[in-house]
């Protein structure tokens, strides 16, 4: 068997397993629901961490996503991939969070109930092995990019994240947002236009940035 057909077989087996788990969870088997959670939750938490202001917020988005999925599981009718269905819930939960945050940002900081939750560590702190000068530069760029992303509206922000950081196809993003690929593409273009305007100075100096593209395998080992 060549590697492609082996992969196909693995994919088919995974699909069959997932289907069996969904049916068992729909019949009320809690262990099956937890097994489903374990299949998909890393991606859900990752997306939340990219969008949330603090680790605690990310954990709350994660939890809310799966609680909503748990409550709505009986309505899942296998009309789309389970991952699409779940990501749709995750996307809506993240959008709600971003909208709430946008409202809170308009209030003075003292009214926001700052709870002292630690912000996510700077990504530049977490890439051992990279040249320190590069880290400093890329850390600064990442911070500017982060600030510019905060200026997008929730939907543009989500589309940009799903496209550039989750690596999803526009078609899949359209499915998740219950809209067309074309609409998703328009949101992406609007987001790109705003970001490029906000980062015009960096972008002008950008040819040198190509050399800063992350090398595969430079990320820290997972704990």
């Amino acid at each position, binding site marked *: 068997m060549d590697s492609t057909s082996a992969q196909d077989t693995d994919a088919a087996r995974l699909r069959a397993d997932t289907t069996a788990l969904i049916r068992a969870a729909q019949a009320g088997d809690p262990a099956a629901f937890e097994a489903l959670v374990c299949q998909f939750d890393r991606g859900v938490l990752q997306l939340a961490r990219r969008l949330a202001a603090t680790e605690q917020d990310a954990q709350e988005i994660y939890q809310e996503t799966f609680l909503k999925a748990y409550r709505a599981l009986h309505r899942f009718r296998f009309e789309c991939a389970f991952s699409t269905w779940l990501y749709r819930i995750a996307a809506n939960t993240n959008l709600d969070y971003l909208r709430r945050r946008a409202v809170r940002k308009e209030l003075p900081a003292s009214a926001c109930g700052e709870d002292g939750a630690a912000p996510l560590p700077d990504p530049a702190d977490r890439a051992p092995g990279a040249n320190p000068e590069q880290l400093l530069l890329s850390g600064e760029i990442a911070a500017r990019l982060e600030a510019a992303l905060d200026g997008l509206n929730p939907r543009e922000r989500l589309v940009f994240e799903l496209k550039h950081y989750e690596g999803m196809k526009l078609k899949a993003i359209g499915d998740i947002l219950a809209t067309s690929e074309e609409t998703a593409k328009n949101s992406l273009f609007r987001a790109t236009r705003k970001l490029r305007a906000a980062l015009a100075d960096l972008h002008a100096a950008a040819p040198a940035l190509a050399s800063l593209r992350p090398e595969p395998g430079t990320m*820290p080992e997972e*704990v």
Partner: protein
Amino acid sequence: MTCQDAQALLRTLSCGEATAADRTALAAHAAGCSACRQRWHSEEAWLALVAQRRPAPVSDAALAQARQALHRALAAEPAPSVRRGWRWPAFSARALRAHRTPRWSPAWAALLLIAGFGGGWWAHHAPSLAAGSPAPAAAQVRVQSVEPASAPGQVRVVYDLVRQQQISGPATNPRLRHLLLLAASQPANAGMQLESIAALRPAASQNPVRQTLLAALTGDPNPGVRLEALNALRPLVTANAGVRAVLAQVVLRDPNPGLRMQAVAALAQAPRADAGRWLRRLSVQSSDPYVRLNCVAAMQQLDLAPPAAAWGAFTAQPAPASGIQHQ
């Protein structure tokens, strides 16, 4: 290719959806068209800029924390709607705590796991059983309350119906594996946790198992369970820097002195340079003089010079315990 075609490809590139063939076609056109070349370079530079932001991947520890919190939240959820006619409660923690199991041998645990331990396999019936219906077998029933009914001379009994299932097979079976992972993280029954960890031990290097073991090592209230998790993780110390970082946290934070020593011993098994780095740091930062002494002894066994500060530190206050970095 016309400049208009090149523009369309540049938009595809900007969307992050350009294929290798698209890039080759663009390069061919750009070689002879300076306007498109400039736009192309600008587009590539933009994508490089976007790629500068790359949050760290989700750590196993963060994922374990999220799963545990979710587990607790689900336990508090009312039973979800179920597609078939009957209802199950979600992760009935109360039922789990009420459940007591005999201690098993590890070999037996690997072969057989009563699924009832894993996740609240209780039928939380409030069925109106007509008095004429056949009574369920005594072993399946747990009576919750007995009270007078509204009509005179009648009585109402509320009971839980236990539906026990069992599943047998090698501990590598995914379903059994999942149940073992659940059982290993149920602090209500330490004996069951120990057996589950023993059954999971051969798979310690695999991701969900490692997460569960790390979560047990850092969060379980029972020191015996934490020790069992530490022992299961020990073979990973040489290859996994994340495990070493967690062990260092155990050395600094675990309330049990025996466990702190075990963590020092495990760290000493790391590759020499790494072991030296951790032991040196802990020999200064730990607030426990015995830990500091042990670190120094372990360093001497590895022919490594302990830091001068460690010698003076056995009786003095330790250095501030902050600032320990994950390696």
